[in-house]
């Protein structure tokens, strides 16, 4: 379990994290979303015990990260941003070092290391020094060191950054399989990832929590929630049909994808009426889709006006 109470961190005059309070229970995967410089990494660094809070507190499995730091660190696995590791070490030596430093007794150590090697498919790079590995492998080594002691709490700062789609898929699977009995926080700015792995999403900007909901709830906030998209050869005819449906608030046409999208009035269902009307008017439709909502649009709306890109970068440590 992870709990923060009014957790804050200032760098000089800049308040990077501003009185954040939340709680994550075992079995939950919390997605931390936000523009660059929003305070995601700083929050994670504080929970992992690297940075001390300027105010407020955080605890991991009941251990305060400041007063009971060692106990908190023991139950936490942490993948720092960029997955840093000792480049001159071989993968095997590095994982052994982490396992030893994590206090795993000698007999179990090699077994645990073998297990994470298996889980992250590191067999082929065991004797290679980490600095010679590809970005994808480095990230996997970083993940391996975070889970080698089978921690109750996992804090992963952009775990899929720089991975190819297959590797992303694998890492998400890994997170999903571990999610059952662990408490996990994942930061990301890849919105599809939230749907893929998170049971809950927290949107944070300028150090404050702006939204805390399930991914489905966030999508429901989108104006595209329950919208209907279609592809047709008769665009003018279809546009006409869509605008005649009573509950349609607006019709949009995307020139790039050549799709028409009908946006419903709040809380109304338009899929049934539209599909019937299209059929009765004999408009050829090659694709008809009910949208659940667009995460990127919700994200933009919630963080709107945020100067994310222009803000000073999050603390580089």
């Amino acid at each position, binding site marked *: 379990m992870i709990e923060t109470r009014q957790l804050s961190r200032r760098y000089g005059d800049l308040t990077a994290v501003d009185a954040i309070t939340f709680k994550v229970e075992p079995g939950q995967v919390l997605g931390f979303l936000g523009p660059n410089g929003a305070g995601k990494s700083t929050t994670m660094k504080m929970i992992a015990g*690297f940075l001390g809070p300027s105010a407020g507190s955080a605890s991991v499995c009941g251990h305060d990260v400041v007063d009971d730091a060692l106990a908190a660190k023991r139950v936490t696995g*942490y993948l*720092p941003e960029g997955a*840093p590791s*000792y480049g001159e*070490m071989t993968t095997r030596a590095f994982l052994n070092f982490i396992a030893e430093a994590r206090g795993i007794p000698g007999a179990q150590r090699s077994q645990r290391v073998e297990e994470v090697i298996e889980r992250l498919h590191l067999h082929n790079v065991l004797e290679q020094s980490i600095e010679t590995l590809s970005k994808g492998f480095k990230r996997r080594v970083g993940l391996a060191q975070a889970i080698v002691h089978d921690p109750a709490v996992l804090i992963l700062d952009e775990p899929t950054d720089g991975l190819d789609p297959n590797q992303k898929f694998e890492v998400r699977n890994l997170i999903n399989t571990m999610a059952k009995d662990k408490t996990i926080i994942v930061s990301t700015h890849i919105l599809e990832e939230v749907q893929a792995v998170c049971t809950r999403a927290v949107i944070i900007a300028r150090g404050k929590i702006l939204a805390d909901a399930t991914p489905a709830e966030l999508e429901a906030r989108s104006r595209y929630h329950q919208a209907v998209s279609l592809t047709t050869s008769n665009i003018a005819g279809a546009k006409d049909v869509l605008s005649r449906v009573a509950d349609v608030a607006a019709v949009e046409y995307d020139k790039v994808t050549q799709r028409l999208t009908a946006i419903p009035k709040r809380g109304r269902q338009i899929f049934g009426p539209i599909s019937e009307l299209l059929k009765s008017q004999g408009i050829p439709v090659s694709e008809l889709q009910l949208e659940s909502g667009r995460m990127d649009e919700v994200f933009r709306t919630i963080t709107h006006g945020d100067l994310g890109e222009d803000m000073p970068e999050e603390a*580089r*440590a």
Partner: protein
Amino acid sequence: MSSIVTVFKRELASYFATPVAYVFIVIFLLLAGAFTFYIGNFYERGQADLLPFFNFHPWLYLFLVPAVGMRLWSEERKSGTIELLLTLPITMWQAVVGKFLAAWAFIGIALALTFPIWITVNYLGSPDNGVIFASYLGSFLMAGAFLAIGSCISACTRNQVVAFILTVVVCFLFLLAGFPLVLNFFTAWAPQGMVDAISGLSFLTHFAAIAKGVIDLRDLVYFALTIAFWLYASAVVIDLKKAD
């Protein structure tokens, strides 16, 4: 304690995983030899002792030890591994001491590899091996003091070159604290007590005392305190600078 050992082992192994260790050891041995034989006139003196060898250690360390110390923390900060290291269940002082001891042991290995000169002098004559042992001890302690300064300065910056240069300067001041070059800065305005205190900080004075073969507890305590102080300062600096 076991955490210190874990950090120590990793750190020491990392020296030998890169060319750093070999370059350092070879250069150290070459320079130590060159100074002893060419500048120290080891043969021409016709005396069975290692004074010309140990006399140059402070100056050798002045450039070589900062080269070892500069990477201690600035590299961790630059590569971000400091975040990894300090979120392991180890305390700050275990990390600081473990890394320091590894670097010190590494210098100790280089120093131990100068043993042929000890064999040489024993072959050529019958030196006082007690004095030689004391000199080795003094030399090793002095290296530790240099290194502790390097550890602290390395913690201040993520740039290794800056760390190196600053460490050389600070070590130089400590080396010559008892000499007019440094003392003249203070005699004009500082009270005599302070000037005496500063001159008492000279590495050279304390090293020379031990190298004479007199292992005085005060000299040992001096080096131990110097090391402890700079390591404590390292921990404070790391904690303060973590956020940048």
